[in-house]
């Protein structure tokens, strides 16, 4: 497995005096599936913002393989093979579900290639496969703006899959899904990992358990605890700030 690792080293982010990330260091190996949990406001989403170039860190280094992510813009980072699902689902309302996926599909991204792009059979099957996977086959021709909250979540996941990235950053994928769907999602992510790296943020511990990999607990912008789910669940500090008694 060639792949790139993700390094975060000593990353801090300060918003008008508020320390959202505090000297955070984290390594995600190629092919690893990493779950990240932590209290609300621990900095999980901010961490993803830093990796994807939405937020510039106040200090510290962020690297993906050889590339220094702090010097790149969002689009180039995405082109490196880092895809993201947002906590608040954002899809293109005016486009159909199918078109949303088509846009996400891995292909050259410049204006001219886009002008020349033709939907060939291969691409069509890929999209249709994903549609089936996210359960939106029936809604393929509907505008995405009409979807319910949960359906939008699924569409976001679908778009992430279409990008076929090396590193997937998934922010709260199962919020608003039924228990059954949660299980499906866990299976899906487990299947993806190995070939690609996956970082999942979730509050649903059942889901995290189902992923069955290493868990990192963030608190106040830095790592509080790291290990298997059982290890973490029995960590007094984690119980204190996160799980409750």
């Amino acid at each position, binding site marked *: 497995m060639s792949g790139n690792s993700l390094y975060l080293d000593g990353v801090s982010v300060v918003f008008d005096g508020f320390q959202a990330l505090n000297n955070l260091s984290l390594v995600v190996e190629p092919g690893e599936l990493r779950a990240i949990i932590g209290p609300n406001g621990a900095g999980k989403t901010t961490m993803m913002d830093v990796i994807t170039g939405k937020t510039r860190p106040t200090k510290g280094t962020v690297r993906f393989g050889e590339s220094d992510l702090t010097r790149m813009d969002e*689009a180039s980072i995405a082109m490196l093979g880092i895809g993201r699902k947002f906590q608040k689902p954002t899809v293109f309302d005016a486009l159909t579900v199918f078109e949303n996926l088509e846009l996400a599909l891995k292909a050259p991204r410049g204006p001219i290639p886009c002008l020349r792009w033709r939907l060939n059979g291969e691409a069509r099957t890929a999209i249709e496969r994903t549609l089936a996977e996210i359960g939106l086959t029936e809604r393929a021709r509907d505008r995405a703006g009409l979807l319910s909250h949960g359906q939008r979540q699924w569409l976001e996941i679908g778009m992430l899959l279409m990008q076929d990235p090396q590193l997937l950053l998934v922010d709260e994928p199962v919020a608003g899904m039924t228990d059954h769907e949660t299980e499906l999602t866990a299976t899906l992510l487990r299947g993806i990992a190995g070939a690609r790296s996956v970082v999942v943020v979730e509050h649903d511990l059942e889901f995290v358990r189902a992923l069955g990999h290493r868990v990192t607990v963030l608190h106040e912008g830095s790592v509080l605890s790291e290990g298997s789910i059982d290890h973490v669940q029995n960590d007094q500090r984690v119980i204190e700030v996160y799980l409750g008694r």
Partner: protein
Amino acid sequence: MTRRLVLLACVVLLALIPILNLLPDASPFHVSDFIVSICGKWICYAILALALDLAWGYAGILSLGHGAFFALGGYAIGMHLMRLIGPRGVYGHPILPDFMVFLGYTELPWYWLGFDWFIFAFAMALVVPGLLALVVGYLAFRSRITGVYLSIITQALTYALMLAFFRNDMGFGGNNGFTDFKELLGMPLNTPATRSVLFYASLVVLVLAYLMCAALTRTKFGRVLTAIRDAESRVRFLGYDVTQHKLFVFVLSAMLAGVAGALYVPQVGIINPGEFSPGNSIEAVVWVAFGGRGTLVGAILGAFSVNAIKTWLTSFAPDLWLIVLGCLFIAVPLLLPRGLIGLLRRGGGK
């Protein structure tokens, strides 16, 4: 489908106008010179509307300065037409246009060189607006200026150009601009035959522009534009370079506007800094909104209908036309949520 048919019918009807003009005056199907000349003018407006709709309706770039590109295209051709006057000017100077003789220029400013060739002037009608759009667009899109901020920047652009062109010291004839044109490509300008030629040229450009825009919006590029319009930052996270995409349409749209201006000037016989006035650009936006934003047919329809109503009302009710037209502008968004095109849709839809 219906929309396509309506469009085709309109094009055919338009194409007939200069032919009907040839019929004898007495014939019931005769249309007057006047109709030919204003329809020719409206076609140019329609091209401008189309250009604007491409940027605004599809990519969400609400330019309040598209009139500037239109006017620059017009000035480029205007300079050519001025050069063609030659020694027929009032002061009989072999090279300098009248206003320069008059303001005491001794030689042609360097930026006037080359405009004696039609090809060069026409190329400039494309290049100058395109280049300006490239520079302004690059700076703006790179720093992620969006929404009203972008609108105001473009408005400032056209306003600044207007003030600059009003200055007599700029070498573009100041407030009076260019008039008194004599000929174009060897044809004397003020004849019905030339008018018909210009009319057809404009119509062909309109049809081509429509086909190009329609094709463009149907590609994936078009869908990326729509996506940018709705959630620009999300598009970035998918790996698209938003700046490039926006720049591409913006420049294309500016060049289209430039062509429209280039076709317009020989038909109306005057170009002056008034064309840069922000009001004109806003009016173009109004055509698009009136016809229906985000549908190319709507933009064309809007340009034609607003101008037709305006032409009719300024003669029919010179005192009240502003009120009537104003009320129309009020009524359309209230009653037809998608603009005039909404009517067609409703009628032909399902």
